[in-house]
C-alpha cells in the first residue's frame, strides 16, 4: 500500500461522431424539398400567422398545422449579430452576420447567415434575399446564406402551395463531430500509469476496505474516495465466462474464444479479459490465470492458465 502521490495529468484526444438519420414529416419534408427547388414554404398557424420555417404543430395551441403557403425569397432583417470569427461548420468561412430574417409573406423569422462586407453594412430592417447553394439536397444549408438586396418588399404576400414536389425529401442525415481532450482523473491516471509498468493497481475503500480494480475514484457503496493504492494479481481466478462466436470488426482474434470475468488476487471485484493459451471448451470457473503482456501493449493482451490447481468455489463465489 502506498500513499497517493500528485498525479501527472494524462490527456488523449476523444472524438465523438454521431450521424443521426432523421425522418421528415409532411411539413418539414415539404419545406426542405422546396429549398432544393428554390421555393420557400411556410405553414399557416391556427391564428393565421405564416410560420417560416414551418412547424408541424402550432407554437401556441399545439394544434396540428398543415396548410402550406409559399413565401418570397426576399425579406427583412429583424435582428442581427456580427460574427468576426466564424467557427467550424458555420455557413460562411469569412466574417458574416447572423440574422433573423422575416421573409416577405411570413410572420416569423428564420435564422441564417448574411454575407455582408462588415457590421456597418448591416442593420435591423435591412432588405435581404436568399443566396441559393449551387448544389442543393433538401436541407437548411440549401440556403447558402442571405445577401443584401435593395428591392422593396413584394406586396403579394403568401400564396397557397400544395407542398408536392417530384422526389420529395423524406429524411436528412445530421452529421456532427465534436472533438474533446480527455483526461481520466486522479484514480484512473494512477491505474494507467501503473499499467505502463505492467502492474495492476487498484484502490481500497477506507470505509469498507473493498479493493476496486480498475479504480474509479469512489466507492459506490460508501460514497467516499478510494485513496489507498493496492497492487493486485498478477494472477487471478476466472469467476465466470462466455464463448464468443461472432468475429468483431477490426479485431484480429479467431473465434470461438473465451471472454471471462477474472478476479485478480487481492481485488474486491472481477475485471474482464480474454482467455488464451487453452482450448476454448476447456475454460472453466475457478481456472487460475495470469496476464500476458505484449511488446508495446498498454494493457494485458489476454490471460492464460498458470497451471495451478483450480480455485475453490468458496474462494471466489462473492466475486462473481
Amino acid at each position, binding site marked *: 500500500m502506498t500513499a497517493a502521490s500528485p498525479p501527472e495529468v494524462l490527456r488523449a484526444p476523444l472524438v465523438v461522431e454521431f450521424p443521426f438519420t432523421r425522418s421528415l414529416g409532411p411539413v418539414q419534408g415539404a419545406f426542405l424539398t422546396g429549398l432544393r427547388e428554390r421555393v420557400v414554404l411556410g405553414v399557416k398557424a391556427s391564428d393565421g400567422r405564416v410560420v417560416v420555417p414551418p412547424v408541424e404543430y402550432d407554437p401556441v395551441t399545439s394544434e396540428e398545422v398543415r396548410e402550406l403557403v409559399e413565401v418570397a425569397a426576399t425579406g427583412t432583417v429583424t435582428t442581427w*449579430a456580427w460574427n468576426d470569427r466564424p*467557427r*467550424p*461548420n*458555420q455557413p460562411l468561412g469569412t466574417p458574416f452576420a447572423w440574422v433573423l430574417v422575416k421573409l416577405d409573406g411570413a410572420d416569423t423569422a428564420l*435564422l441564417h447567415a448574411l454575407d455582408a462586407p462588415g457590421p456597418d453594412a448591416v442593420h435591423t430592417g435591412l432588405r435581404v434575399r436568399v443566396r441559393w447553394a449551387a448544389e442543393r439536397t433538401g436541407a437548411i444549408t440549401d440556403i447558402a446564406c442571405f445577401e443584401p438586396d435593395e428591392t422593396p418588399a413584394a406586396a403579394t404576400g403568401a400564396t397557397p402551395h400544395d407542398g408536392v414536389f417530384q422526389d420529395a425529401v423524406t429524411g436528412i442525415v445530421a452529421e456532427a463531430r465534436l472533438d474533446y481532450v480527455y483526461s481520466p482523473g486522479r484514480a484512473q491516471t494512477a491505474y494507467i500509469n501503473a499499467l505502463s509498468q505492467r502492474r495492476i493497481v487498484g484502490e481500497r475503500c477506507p470505509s469498507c476496505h473493498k479493493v476496486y480494480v480498475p479504480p474509479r*475514484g469512489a466507492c459506490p*457503496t460508501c*460514497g467516499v474516495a478510494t485513496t489507498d493504492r493496492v497492487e493486485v494479481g498478477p494472477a487471478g481466478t476466472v469467476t465466470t465466462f462466455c464463448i464468443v462466436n461472432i468475429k468483431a470488426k477490426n479485431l484480429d482474434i479467431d473465434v470461438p474464444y473465451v471472454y471471462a470475468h477474472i478476479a485478480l488476487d487481492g481485488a474486491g471485484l472481477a475485471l474482464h479479459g480474454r482467455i488464451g493459451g487453452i482450448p476454448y471448451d476447456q475454460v472453466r470457473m475457478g481456472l487460475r490465470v495470469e496476464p500476458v503482456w505484449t511488446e508495446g501493449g498498454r494493457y494485458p493482451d489476454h490471460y492464460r492458465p498458470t497451471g495451478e490447481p483450480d480455485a475453490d468455489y468458496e474462494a471466489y463465489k462473492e466475486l462473481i
Partner: protein
Amino acid sequence: MTGPRTSRYARDVAVVAFAQSDHLRRTDELSEVEMVMPVLHEVLAATGLKAGEIGFTCSGSSDYLAGRAFSFTMTLDGVGAWPPISESHVEMDGAWALYEAWVKIQTGEADTALVYSYGKSSPGSLRDVLTRQLDPYYLAPLWPDAVALAALQAQALVDAGETDESALAAIAARSRADAAANPHAQLRGAVPQGDYQVRPLRTGDCPPVGDGAAAVVLAAGDLARQLCERPAWITGIDHRIEAHGPGLRDLTDSASTRIAAQHAGVFDAPVDTAELHAPFSSQEVVLRKALGLGGSGTDSGSGTDSGFGAVAVNPSGGALAANPMMAAGLIRIGEAAARIHRGASDRAVAHATSGPCLQQNLVAVLEGDPR
C-alpha cells in the same frame, strides 16, 4: 409548529443546505466523480445526514459536455448508490433535478432529497457542443453557437431601446464586482470588457467557461427545522417553456419567466433578493423586465427603482462570474437559500434557464421564517 408564511402546496419543503465547488477553467486532474464528491460530502455534513438516510437523490448533467456516455452513472458512485437507492437524473440543469425532487417530496414518497449537478466543460469546445442542443432540422446544421444566439437577442434589445452596450458593460462589471465576495466564483473583481465575441456582445458580456458542481439538500416540514436553523422554504416553484425557434419568439421579453413567476407567487409580496440565471449580461435585462425587478442593472446592489424597494440582484455575482453548465441554475437556488439561511434575506426569488435565448425558465420563491 407553524409553516412558512405562505403555503400553497401539500407539504412544506425547504432547502436546508447548499454547497458548491470552486468553479475553475479546467479540472484536468479530476474525473467527474472526483470533482463532485467533495461537494456531496460538504452538503451532507451541513445537515448531519448520511447518504443512506436521504429519501431521494436526483442529479442533473449532460454527457455532451465531457463527451462521456452515461457519465451520471459514474458520479453516482460518489453518492454511495449501492445497494441501489431511490434515484433519478435529468439531462438538464440541476434546478430541474431539484424540481423533480420537490415533486417527489410533495407526493409523500420521500421526506428528504439530495440534489446535485455538475458540468465539466473543459474537455470540449463549449460553444460548438451547445449547438447540438438545437433543433436538428433548421438550426443545428448551421452551428449557431450560444454566444451568437445570445447576441441576436442582445441586438434585439438594443434595437428596442431596452439597453445599450454601456449598460450591458455595467451589468457585467457589477456582477464581477459582487463576485469579489464569492470565493467559489471563477471571475471576480475587475474584468475587462474586451473585444466583441459576437457583436454586440463583448467578452465581458459572456459567462466564463469552466468546470464545477453544486448540491442542495431538501427536507419537509419539521425535519427541515431539525436539519437547519433557518430553512429556506420553497413557497412557490414553477417552470415554463417557449417555442424553440428564436424567430418564433419576442426575444426582448420572457413570457415563460413571467408566467412561472406568477404561478410561483413572486408578485404576491416583495422580494429582497433575486438570483437570476442570466449567462449573458443582456439576459439580465430581459429577466428584470419579466420579474418586475426594474432597474437597468447598472448599480451595485441595484434595483432601487423597483416598486418592491431595494432588491439585491445576483449578489453572488451570478452566471457572469461562474457558469458551470448544468449547475449554474441550481446554484441560483442554492445562493438564494444560503442568504435566507444566514439571515441576509427573508424572501428571495431564484431563477434558472435552459435552452437558447432563455427558452425555458424555472422560478422559485424561497422564504425564511419570520424573525
